């Protein structure tokens, strides 16, 4: 039994490793020996803050809120907060420039370890830290993919010449794996961001609100 479980584990790991690269090859990307492009950030260097309509769909349930992303110049970090439309803070997390994150506040009603962990790990994809390094490089025409390693985690960033990432995919093919679609880049980063999850109907979408010169 122990040998069987070990075999399953090894096989699963191999599948996880090969699945992502295989998927890229199927999409026409070619692996190149050297990484000769940089990871452009989701938010431009002069980004200060932005306001979003947020829609969270989980199964048949839909929940809406406001989202705020703010660059904190003093620490070089980003804060992301979710608020109810009537103004109540629901969730706040800070992404530090070393790639770590810190949950500053979770409203009592959503204070479940799994929820907090999933939200934090999803949103973290938007803020790769300064210490993140591209370990693999794939190219297709003007598009390229960087496999980024940060704090032991490896994620795929799909980029084009002129914008920041248009897609971010967590490594592997596990249940609940996150794919982020980033669209309509403007002066303040993507105007639409959608987090999708493999095999579960759980989606978070951010749509930038045109507010008082913020965007």
């Amino acid at each position: 039994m122990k040998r069987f479980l070990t075999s399953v584990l090894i096989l699963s790991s191999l599948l996880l490793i090969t699945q992502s690269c295989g998927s890229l090859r199927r999409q026409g990307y070619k692996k190149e020996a050297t990484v000769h492009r940089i990871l452009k950030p989701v938010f431009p260097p002069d980004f200060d803050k932005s306001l979003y309509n947020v829609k969270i769909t989980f199964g048949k349930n839909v929940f809406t809120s406001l989202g705020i992303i703010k660059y904190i110049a003093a620490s070089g970090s980003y804060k992301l907060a979710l608020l109810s439309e009537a103004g109540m803070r629901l969730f706040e997390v800070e992404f530090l420039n070393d790639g770590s994150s810190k949950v500053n506040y979770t409203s009592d009603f959503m204070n479940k370890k799994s929820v907090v962990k999933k939200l934090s790990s999803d949103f973290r994809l938007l803020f790769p830290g300064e210490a993140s390094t591209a370990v693999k490089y794939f190219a297709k025409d003007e598009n390229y993919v960087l496999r980024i390693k940060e704090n032991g985690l490896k994620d795929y960033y799909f980029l084009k010449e002129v914008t920041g990432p248009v897609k971010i995919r967590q490594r592997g093919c596990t249940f609940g794996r996150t794919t982020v679609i980033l669209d309509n880049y403007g002066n303040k980063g993507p105007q639409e961001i959608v987090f999708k999850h493999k095999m579960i109907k759980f989606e978070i979408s951010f749509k930038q609100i045109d507010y008082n010169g913020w965007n």
Partner: protein
Amino acid sequence: MQKGLFPLMVFLLASFVAAAQPPGFKKVADTAYIRQKINEVASKTNSINTEFVQEKNLSFLDEKIISKGILLYKKPDMLRLEYISPYSYLLIINNGKLHIKSDDSEIKVDLESSKMFNEINDLIINSIQGKILNMPDLSTEFYEDDNSFFIRLHPEQEELKKYINTIELFIGKKDYTVTNFKVIELSDDYTLIKFINKKINEEIPDERFNTE
């Protein structure tokens, strides 16, 4: 996800009512007269039609988020709360039903099926009418200046205490209706709502509260 609506509802409760005493205000010792007057006005208030401006202050932001909208209330328990800018969001409570509509989603909840929502619904309606001051789960402090009463409410109920530190409410001495309220969260972030162009007892068609 119905549970997710709870904090929203709690906040809306606070919204219809508003940690130091404001400058120029002095403490009121005998509050019975004020309570009685507010109750009298509430009993004569059949409808409220008012614009509102909401200011959200977050400690990590250098400016407030200002949103605007319209609030309609009609006795005994019809409420329409509509945010118009910078985002679109509509909440209607009518006949035991809660309907929330935003840009691309719609939520309907039967308040009768949930004791919790039903209680919160009562709280909201009581707050709009000023009857919140009679509720047992809020301790109160009264202050006044020449033009207004300033009432500070502290939640005593454990569920409310998880979300709200203090509610501050301003009531005009002219008409004994709520002019401003401020909800202070546990983190000291706050939401201030100011009612402007308030019209009391104007006819509001029932269709404005249609949840279908």
